[in-house]
Each structure stands twice: as C-alpha cells, then as structure tokens.
C-alpha cells in the first residue's frame, strides 16, 4: 500500500495491479447478491424455485416485471414514496438549517438549555419510543394519513447538530461585514450563510432522502391502508402476504432500490465531499 505519495494518474505499478485485482474480487463478491436478484427476476416463477438452483435463467422472461406492474399497487407505492421522501427532505433541510443557524449564531434566552434538550433527542428514534409516538400521532388523528407518515420524520436532532457544527465553523467576519452594511439577520442568513453551506445542506438532504425512502418501521406502524404504503412497506407486507413469488419479489426489490442507486451514481462526489465538509468525518 505504498501509493499515498504517488501522483494521481499513475502507471500500472505492481502494487497497483495487486490492489486493483483485489478490488475487483471484493466488489464482485459484494455485487453478487444484487446480480442474483436481477437474474432471479428474469426467470419464470417455476424456474426460480427449481432445485438444484442455477445462476443464469435458462429461459429469459420479463414476466415477473410485467406482473409487477399489472397486478400490484407498485406504481401507487412508488408515488407515495416520492411524496413522503420529498416532503420530509424539504422540511428537514429547511427546519434544521434554520435551527442549526439559530443555535450557532444567535442569542436568545434559554438557548443552552434548549440545545441540551436537542442533544438528548439524538438518542430517540421511532425504534426506541415507537409505541408512545404512535399513540401521540393517533390522538392527533393522523393515523393512515400522509401527514402522519411525514411529520414525525421531520424532527431529526442529528441533522440540526451537524449543521450547528458547520455554521459554527463559518468565519464571523463574513456576516459582520454585512451587518455593518445594514443587512438584517434574515437577509444575512439567506444571502450569505445558505449559499456558503451548499455542500453541507446537500449532504444533509441526500442522507435524509435515503433514510426516508428506506424507512420501514415508522410507515409500518402508522399505516394499514395498502393505498398509502411506501415501497419498502408494500413490498414487505403486501407482496409477502399472498405467498412469496420470488421472481416478482426480486423485481419489486430492485425497483425499490433503483432510484437511490441512480441518485448515488450522479451525486457520489457531493456525498463524499459533503460527509467530509459537514465535519462528520473529521470529528
């Protein structure tokens, strides 16, 4: 591993050849389950459960994919997932940017006590307090509604904390110069602070979107109505309930995972640099 000091576009040194071969081998192992899901989804249901099993379909068929779109509520679930994740991401980014800035850069009575409360909130998730959270949401009449799925996901103390740390690291001079020119607090926030924070905000947004798109537990608790279910929910609870059809299940799973994989392919540079920027990695 003597590559640390080697310039970027290097030659094929012996150590690079060994490392690359190792990388190819490990990634192949890592991708195998996904590849197998893809192959299974292209078999017929009877071929999928044949013993002994085999990798490549003997007879390629798009039957499982077709059945998925014809019989299932999959398009419905997909739309629900989009609605819920987009709303959650929008609200979380807005609300936690404001709160992170408020805690990092403004003064008000009781600030430190409130900050302490938010830090304590880092320990709470629907897994920890799911039942009381459910009865709370129930008493607000939000069971089996979009709001019931969305709003409880919109108070992530972790995101506030990440942005709070980031805003603390912005030099004060930038804001002070604007104050001297007569700009108000909100104007400084929207015209100076937010544009500076784009990498951190996009990291927070992307991670919120991933978490929300893949959230299973909370929607599982709060909805029973198949019309309102999100992708992970519908696939796990509805598709499993009428006897597992493996080819179709694998097709559905790939459908549920695909949007995020596409997002990652396009945004991976921002994600990695966002992680570095938010100070998550530099703690």
């Amino acid at each position: 591993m003597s590559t640390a000091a080697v310039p970027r576009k290097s030659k094929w040194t012996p150590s690079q050849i060994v490392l690359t071969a190792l990388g190819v081998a490990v990634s192949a192992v890592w991708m195998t389950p996904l590849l197998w899901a893809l192959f299974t989804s292209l078999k017929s249901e009877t071929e999928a459960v044949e013993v002994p099993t085999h990798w490549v379909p003997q007879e390629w068929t798009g039957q499982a994919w077709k059945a998925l779109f014809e019989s299932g509520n999959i398009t419905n679930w997909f739309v629900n997932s989009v609605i819920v994740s987009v709303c959650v991401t929008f609200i979380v980014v807005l609300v936690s940017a404001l709160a992170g800035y408020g805690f990092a850069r403004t003064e008000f009575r009781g600030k430190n006590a409130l900050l302490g409360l938010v830090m304590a909130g880092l320990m709470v998730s629907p897994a920890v307090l799911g039942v009381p959270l459910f009865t709370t949401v129930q008493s607000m009449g939000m069971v089996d509604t979009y709001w019931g799925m969305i709003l409880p996901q919109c108070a992530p103390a972790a995101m506030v904390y990440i942005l709070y740390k980031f805003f603390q690291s912005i030099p004060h001079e930038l804001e002070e110069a604007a104050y001297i020119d007569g700009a108000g607090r909100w104007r400084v926030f929207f015209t100076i602070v937010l544009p500076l924070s784009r990498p951190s905000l996009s990291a927070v947004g992307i991670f919120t979107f991933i978490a929300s798109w893949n959230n299973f537990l909370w929607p599982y608790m709060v909805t029973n109505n198949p019309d309102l279910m999100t992708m992970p929910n519908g696939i796990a609870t509805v598709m499993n309930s009428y006897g597992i059809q493996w080819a179709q299940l694998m097709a559905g799973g790939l459908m549920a995972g695909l949007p995020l994989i596409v997002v990652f392919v396009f945004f991976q540079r921002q994600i990695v640099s966002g992680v570095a920027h938010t100070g998550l990695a530099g703690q």
Partner: protein
Amino acid sequence: MSAVDTAVAPAAVRTVPAAGTDALRARLTRRLQHGGWFVAPFLTLFALFVLFPIGRGLWLSFTDANISGTGERFVGLDNYREALDSPLLWDSLGHSAYFTLLVVPCIVVLAFLLAMLAHHIERAKWLWRLCFFAPFLLPSTVAGNLWQWLFNPGTGMINHVFGLDTPWLTQKSTALLAVVITTLWWTVGFSFLLFLAALQNIPRHLYEAAELDGAGAWQRMVHITLPMLRNITGLVITLQILASLQVFDQAVVMQDFGPGPEESTRTFVQYTLEEGFTAYRVGYASAISIIFFVLIAAVALGRMWLLRKREEGVR
C-alpha cells in the same frame, strides 16, 4: 464534537477590526438577539414528536392503557416489575445485545479495510465507492428479502455455492447469524463512506514527510493513518452500537414477521411492538420502551463521558 471547532471560533471573533469596537459590538449583539425565531419551527416539531411522546410514554408506563387510549388506570410500578421479571424481555434484550456484539467489531474492521482499498486504488474510484455503498441504498426490507432468498436451503445460492445443506433460517443456532451476515453486507457501506472521507482528509504532506524519513508502508499506517482515524473510529463504533441495539427490520423480514425458530431472533424492538400493537398493552409496552430508552441513553452518555475524559487527558 471536536475540541478544535470550539477553540477556533472565539479566536475568529477577536480578529474583528479594532476601530469603534464597543459601539459595533453593541450593534451586532442587538442584531443577534431574538434568534428564537430561527429555532422555533424545529422546536415545534421536536416538542410534538420527540418530547411529548417521551413524556406521554413515561405517563403511560405507570398505567394499564390499551391501544384505544381510554379508561387507563394508574398502576404504579407494576409494569416495570412485570417487565423486569419477564424472561421474554431478557431474551429479546439478549438477542439484540448478541447481535450488537457480533456486528459492531465486524463492521468497523470491514469498513476500514474496504475504505483503505478504495482509497489506495488509483483507477475507477467511483466504481469501488458504488459497489461497496450500493447495498446501503436498498430498503431494509429488500435486503432482508434478498438474503432470505439467498439463505433458502433448497433454492438459495449460499448453500449451492458453498456445497452446504444448512437450514439457515429455520434452526436456532444459525437464524440470528444469518441476520448478522445480511446486516454486514447491507450496512457496511455507510461506515465505509465515513472512513473514506476521513482518509481523504488526512494531509498528504504527513505521508511525504514520513517517506523522506524512511518510513515504510506499514510504519506509515501505524504511525499516521491509524492515529488520524482515531476519532472517526470512535464515532463509527458509537453509531453502530446505537443502530445495532435498535435492530428490527431485517430480522422480522427474514422470519416473515415471526419470532424465528425457537423465538431465537426476537429483538428488543420487536418485543416492544408485539406488546404494543399485537397484545394491545400500550402501558406495558411503554414501560419497556422507557427501559430501552434509558439503556440507549446510557450508551450515548458513556460515549460523551469517554470523549470528555480523553480531551481532558490531551490537555
């Protein structure tokens, strides 16, 4: 969380122009007051969906409330007494703890090795990132179903590839292990990304200087890479412990929402939800939630205490 951030911020304030400092400072202070409006939207949501449920859970845990939420009776510590006496509580806690004990060390080591690999290969960096991170982008239920299918004794690929005949998901000794393996594959990508970002943050000149001094690859790793990664490793360990104690999704999906062979995969979260939503005992379920909350809080506070002690040690 780093001591550096907090130490740097006040120093930056002090470099403001000296002329007319007092008047300027007073004006700025005025401008910065009433920042409460910034935090109000978040605090509203936070109060409704975090603080209120905690308080409500605490209250319900002293009652015999059922799911309809009417006519609850105060029963004092009865729920807590029953919970602590219940073998189901200790069994499910044991499964979550055992899971955590297996997953955390494996994930940390695996994520570190994968990150080193992805960091040091010069070509097609995006490809390695994508491969190792992609499973994390699947919903937990999809990962669970996929591995349920892979572990299937007759038609699954695992037994086929390794020439085994193991009924992974239907025997007690391997059911939870199968969940562990699934989790490693599915979640290592997140820690991998944290390590990768931390590796990229290590200044290159440290390595160059070490090389001039004649340090070999192994020495550079032991004396530069590992010490520079100490903080991120601590963070990854804490996050993984907290996440692993809360394991639920994969375990129930792989066992078709049941408790597994001889109830061997029932985790703590599953136990809570069964009591709350299947047995409709909301009061009792709230009591076990509060016990769980205290446990999680203890882990998180323990980590903060360790951090503070270390920072004091550095000074």
